C-alpha cells in the first residue's frame, strides 16, 4: 500500500517494513484507531490477534482487514508482559485477548473481564510459552 506514508507522517515511531507489515512501538490504540477511522485505510475488521513467544518478549500481530477496500495489514507490537486492550475499537478482540492471556500470560490493560478462556481457572502456567513445563507425563510435548 502506497498510502502507508500518511500513517508515518502522523506517527513517527511507526516502522513500515513492507507493503502489509508495520511495527508499532507505542500508542498502539491510537494507531489502530487511525487505521480504522481514516477513509484511505478503513480497516474495520480485526480478523485475529496472533501471539508468539519470542523468548525475550511476546510478539503480537494484529491482522486487520478492510471490508470496503479488500486490504489486509499486519500490525506488529512487542509486549514485554502487558499490552493495551483494543476491545474499545474491535469488539471481536475480547475472545482473542482472553485466549492470549490464557495461553501466553499477556495482561491486557483495560480489559476488565480478562479471564482464562480455554483452560480451567485452576490451571497453572501458560502453555504456549516456550519455557512451559508440565510434569504430567501423559502429555505429548514432554518428550
Amino acid at each position, binding site marked *: 500500500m502506497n498510502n502507508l506514508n500518511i500513517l508515518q507522517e502522523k506517527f513517527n515511531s511507526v516502522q513500515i517494513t513492507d507493503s502489509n507489515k508495520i511495527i508499532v512501538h507505542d500508542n498502539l490504540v491510537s494507531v489502530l484507531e487511525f487505521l480504522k477511522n481514516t477513509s484511505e485505510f478503513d480497516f474495520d475488521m480485526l*480478523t485475529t490477534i496472533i501471539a508468539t513467544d519470542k523468548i525475550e518478549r511476546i510478539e503480537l500481530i494484529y491482522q486487520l482487514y478492510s*471490508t470496503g477496500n479488500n486490504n489486509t495489514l499486519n500490525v506488529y507490537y512487542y509486549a514485554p508482559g502487558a499490552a493495551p486492550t483494543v476491545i474499545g475499537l474491535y469488539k*471481536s478482540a*475480547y475472545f482473542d485477548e482472553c485466549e492470549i492471556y490464557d495461553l501466553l500470560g499477556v495482561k491486557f490493560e483495560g480489559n476488565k473481564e480478562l479471564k482464562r478462556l*480455554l*483452560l480451567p481457572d485452576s490451571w497453572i502456567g501458560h502453555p504456549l510459552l516456550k519455557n512451559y513445563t508440565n510434569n504430567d507425563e501423559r502429555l505429548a510435548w514432554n518428550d
Partner: protein
Amino acid sequence: MTDIMKINVGPQHPSTHGVLRLITELDGEKIISIKPEIGYLHRGLEKLAESKTYLQYLPLVDRVDYLGGFFTSYAFCNAVEHLLNIQTTKRTEYIRTLCMELNRIASHLLWLGTYMLDLGASSPIFYTFRERESILALFEELTGQRMMYNYFTFGGVRFDVDNNWLDKVNDFLNILPKAIGNYEKIITNNAIFIDRTKNKGILTKSFCSKYAITGPNMRASGLEIDFRQKMPYSAYNELGFVVSVNNLSDSYGRYLVRIQEMRTSIDLIKQCIMFLKQNKDNVSCNINPIKLKIPQGEYTSYVESSRGLLCCYIQSDGSEKPYRVKWRTGSFYAVQVLPELVIGQNYNDLIAIFGSLDVILPEVDR
C-alpha cells in the same frame, strides 16, 4: 417482577453440536443475560505443533474442523508451500478445489439437517444425510477416510483422481440439484420455519465487522465478501461463480445463503471435472516430506471455509518443526456475537438463533 432464574444450557446439550456451556439468566422466558463458556474441546492443537514435524502435524490439522477437513488441510499445506516457495501443478489445485467444494456441500447438508432438528422438524435430517452419505462415500473411495482425510500433502495430493471417480461425482451432481429443490419445497415456504427464523437474530453489517463475523453469516447481512473471490487461492481465479448474498440479516437469510452456496458449489465442481478430464499433469512435487526443513519466515493463508474465514499462520525458525502455528476460525467469532443476538429474546429462540450461525465447537476450542 418475577425472580431472575439462572440456568446452564449445556455443556451436554443436544443442540449445541459439541460441548458448549451457556450461562443464561432468564426473567420469565425472556433472556436477560447470556455468557458463552468455551474450552471443553480444547486439544492444544497449537501447542502440539511445537513438538511435531510438519509431516507429523499434517494428519492433526483435519481435526481442527472435523466437518471441513479439506479446508484446514488446504490452509496448512498452502502456508507450508508458500514458505518453501514451491509451485503446485494446476491439476493438484483443481483436485483440491473439487474436494473443498464437495466438502462445503457436505458441511452445509449436515448443518441443514441438524438445524431443522433443532427447530423440531425431524424428517429433513434423513434426506440431507442421504445426500451427505453419497459425498462421504466418494471421499472414502478417493482418500480411504470418511472424515479425517489426510489427503493433501505438501506440493500435491496423495492419490490422483481417475475418470471413473470423476464420473461418479458427476452422477451425484446430477441428482443433487433435485434433492436441494426437494429440501426447499418442504422448508423454504414452511409457515412454522418462517415464523421461527424470519426477523430472528438480526445481525447487522456493523456487527459483522465489529465482531469479525465472516462466511455465510456475513453474506446474509448484505456484505458481499467471499475470500474465494476477494483473495483467490487454489484454482478459484480460473473458475467463474457468483457469490451468494442477501440483505435479510436474519436466520432465514443465513439459510437462503447456504442453500444458494450449495448450488454454486455444484457449478464449481462441474468446471473442475471438465478441466480434470482433459488435463494429465502429475499431482506431486519432488520434495521429501520426511526431511522437510522450512526456511525461516512466516505466512498466513486465507481460506473461505464453510463457516467463514479460516486462517492458518505458520512461523518457522528454519528447523524441521514449526515455531508457531495459529488457527483463526470462523466459529470462534460467531460464538462471541451470540449475546448480542439473543438478549431480550424469548428462551425458545435461543437454539433457533444459535443454530443458524453454524457453530462447530471443535473449531472454536482447537
